[in-house]
């Protein structure tokens, strides 16, 4: 049993990393990775949202959608839930850390449309996992996202000082670097 949960975490964080292997959530990955501090903040916000969203979507699926046989509204229901969770997070961040809100900028509300969040919620349902497993799945995916986001932002801070050829400056070299990180993460294939 415990083994299974560990496996879920290893799988979501490293082997099937949402950003580098499944290519989900690339928008905030590119957008909020200019500075380590911001990336850490975004990591926390996303972890919070993802865990909460996957838990609540599990509850909504099991206790509202299935009993009333309205599974065909699943996507809409999940999006509404996620939007609410993000709205809630935004309010909390506003209150607790205005600096973080500022540095996250538009990307905080944009977690709503982070495909990783909806992806996790939908995948959970199709895999028919338990409440704990879906929570862990969401949590692991978020940790994996935050982990590579922070690593990537530290790399980008360094690359900023490099003499990159002009056509590759900024986003292009960042994308290339992300691709190389993907190559490195291929090494985990087969682990879980």
């Amino acid at each position, binding site marked *: 049993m415990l083994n299974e949960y560990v496996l879920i975490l290893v799988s979501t964080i490293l082997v099937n990393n949402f950003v580098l292997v499944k290519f989900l959530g690339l928008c905030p990955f590119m957008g909020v990775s200019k500075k380590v501090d911001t990336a850490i903040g975004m990591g926390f916000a996303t972890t919070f949202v993802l865990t909460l969203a996957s838990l609540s979507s599990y509850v909504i699926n099991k206790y509202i959608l299935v009993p009333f046989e309205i599974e065909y509204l699943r996507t809409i*229901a999940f999006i509404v839930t996620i939007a609410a969770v993000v709205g809630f997070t935004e309010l909390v961040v506003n209150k607790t850390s205005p600096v973080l809100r500022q540095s996250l900028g538009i990307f905080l509300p944009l977690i709503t449309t982070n495909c990783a969040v909806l992806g996790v919620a939908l995948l959970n349902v199709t895999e028919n996992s338990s409440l704990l497993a879906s929570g862990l799945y969401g949590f692991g995916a978020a940790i994996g996202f935050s982990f590579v986001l922070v690593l990537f932002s530290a790399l980008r801070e360094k690359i900023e000082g490099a003499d990159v050829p002009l056509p590759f400056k900024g986003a292009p070299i960042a994308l290339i670097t992300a691709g190389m990180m993907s190559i490195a993460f291929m090494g985990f294939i087969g682990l879980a």
Partner: protein
Amino acid sequence: MIEAIIVFSIFALLLGLVLGFSAKKFKVKGNPLVEQINSILPQTQCGQCTYAGCKPYAEAIAKGEAKINQCPPGGQEGVDALAELLNVDTLPLNEEHGETKPKHVVEIDEELCIGCTLCIQACPVDAILGASKVMTTVIASECTGCDLCIPVCPVDCIYLIDLKPSMDEYVPNMEKVTNV
């Protein structure tokens, strides 16, 4: 069908209630953004941005009314810093608002000054001393180089003085440093 609509409406209503409640609970007063923007602006108070000073400009940026590239004294570096703070793409400095001039102060030719005090009123930082019909003078260390006093002077006795480079403020030239 009806059932679905009802269930969904209740569901949405519940979420709305939660959000509304937390919006009340986590309410923030004021806009901390203005402070942050204002701290990047150079505080010359020159009004070249078309606002009455740095703070009004900061407020305008925060509201999204003004662009970030309207501050010539801050230079391109200032625009870049604003872009970074606001997490938007940087813009080239808008030349319509003027060019970035080297650091300078003004000086009043005390022989010509007629003591009209117009410049005193124009100075945004109270850096000009004097009274009606007596000689007027600029406190150089307080002058921001906004040049607002120059157009109001009726006898054109205010001049720009370039600040002399000093040993204390010397920044080596990067091209001199690198040896490639």
